[in-house]
């Protein structure tokens, strides 16, 4: 079983910094995207059952190498980082194209696992866009994994219902937060991760090495403006002991209806 897990380094919570000139995020370090941590946990679970090899694939700044090393410690067998100035500023469409190029170069995969969404871009479209680029099926919003014999069954969250989708390889699955608990590496695994293979590929390594098909210039999305939304809280949160709240409610009710 050949599994590719797409992972992304995202800013720590609340840490998104945007370059004011081209409105592209400045990336300098960060953490493994929470849904991707679950996708990796699912990959490790499937590999335990069916055997095979896990490749962690990421597009990002060179700082994302540390996050890829983390995935190698947790259970990936090899890592590939797509990092090149030409890839900078890619929107979801072009990110999927770049990842698809790398998947092709890797010789394809039986199963490609992605996190359902990231905490920075948050479009939740990359997995499906990637599946479309590779012309393979995708299942999204996976909230649990079961097995029928050796076949993984993806339990998909639908509005108010669930669907059980039997895996038919090759395919893409987008994994949600509840699908699996994240894994932690042991100290030994974390130290040994430095010895596992990690490749860095740039534009010239891609099957399509025409720079005009990558990054900001190839992206149909145009960011016009980024603004912080500030919400004004009209009523302060209730922090008093419940007995005080009860007393205030009682007072308010008495003021309206009277009584002792």
């Amino acid at each position, binding site marked *: 079983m050949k599994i590719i897990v797409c992972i992304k380094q995202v800013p*720590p*919570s609340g*840490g998104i*910094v945007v370059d004011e000139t081209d409105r592209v995020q*400045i990336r*300098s*370090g*960060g*953490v*493994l995207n*929470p849904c991707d*941590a679950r996708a990796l946990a699912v990959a490790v679970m499937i590999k335990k059952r069916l055997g095979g090899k896990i490749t962690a694939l990421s597009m990002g700044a060179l700082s994302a190498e*540390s*996050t890829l*090393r*983390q995935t190698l*410690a947790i259970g990936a067998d090899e890592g590939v980082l797509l990092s090149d100035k030409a890839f900078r500023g890619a929107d979801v469409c072009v990110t999927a194209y770049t990842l698809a190029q790398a998947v092709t170069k890797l010789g394809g995969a039986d199963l490609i696992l992605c996190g359902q969404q990231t905490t920075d871009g948050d479009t939740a479209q990359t997995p499906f866009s990637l599946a479309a680029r590779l012309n393979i099926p995708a299942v999204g919003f996976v909230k649990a994994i079961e097995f029928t014999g050796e076949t993984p069954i993806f339990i998909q969250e639908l509005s108010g219902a669930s669907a059980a989708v039997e895996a038919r390889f090759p395919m893409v699955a987008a994994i949600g*937060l509840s699908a699996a*608990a*994240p*894994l*932690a*590496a*042991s*100290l*030994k*695994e*974390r*130290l040994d991760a*430095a010895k596992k293979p990690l490749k860095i590929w740039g534009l010239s390594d891609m099957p399509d090495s025409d720079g005009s098909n990558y990054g900001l210039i190839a992206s149909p999305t145009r960011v016009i403006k980024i603004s912080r939304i500030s919400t004004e809280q009209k009523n*302060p949160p209730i*922090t*008093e*002991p419940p007995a*005080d709240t009860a007393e*205030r409610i009682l007072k308010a009710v008495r003021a309206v209806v009277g009584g002792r």
Partner: protein
Amino acid sequence: MEIIAFDKDKYAGYLRDESGLTGRADFIAFPRDGAELSEALAFAAKNAVGATVQGARTGLFGAAVPRGGLVISTEKLTRVYGACQGADGGYTLRVQSGVTLKEINDYLRGERRLFGGERYAFAPNPTEANATVGGMLVRDAIGLNALRSGRFSEHVSSLTVVKGDGSTIGYATAKELLSDKRAGADRGEIFAVLDAELRLTKKDSVFWGVFYFFDGKKTAEEFIGGLLSRRAARGFLRDALAALVWFDGEVLRRVSERRLADSSLQGLPEFPADARAAVYAELSGDDGAALESELCVHAELFEKIGGADTWAETGEDEIQKFRAVCHAAVEVAGRPKENDGDGSAYGYADKDGNIVFPS
């Protein structure tokens, strides 16, 4: 500045802190500078009403809970004046007392915030990011990295204090204030910290955080003893080992219960089911290879003692989820008096290797 009559509904939050105690108050004021802070304290003195200075009210012992009179909130004393280089070449950051730990860290992490081409940090980390400089200074807060960095007061190079009569005094060190008779601090008299100059430390580039889980308290203590004796023996380790934090099984169980409600804990797996104690160790420095070989020695020691599982992470951003466990532990451990048995449910190793409790 307006001295506002206390409206219990509007200002209910100002009657409590994290101790869970509730007090009462007659007036409240939100000074923005030294003159207004003096005005508030002078008002309390003139009208012979007591005053309580409040930071972020994250204190665990009720020290910010008013007992009538005037509440002086420092929440509008939030100016960060900026950094400067001292004669010794070191850098300091001058801030008003209502500035929080988070605001200091955000300021220093700013994209282009370099000092002589280097990154600097404020070392004390009492984990509660909302705590203010005034509160941390007066409590002399102790951070999870107390082993390397000691107490808050060790990182203050000068400060300005407004006394109960409204007059202002400057101090060269926080320790001087905490024991000084002129401000009345030693007699429990009211005073308010206006601003402070915080000593910055050159920031390390490599960070490791490791959780070691044990089947009992004894093995955890043996492990801590082993790490501390290595630290005593070798120069490099003295600097590399930044934090040692101790948890008992009950604290682990209570932190685990909080996982669903606390988003900062959700990036972690469940603690190992048989863990009855844990030690969190943090190492940092600039020599990554040296840190890794030191960690190999820790791993050997852990194995020899018969420890069970470990979790390890590297990178300052990634170890935040481990620090979040330390933060949650303070919240769930209860006050020291409620801690179990010998009162050691959770604690930090200080510079001398003693386990102490955040206060």
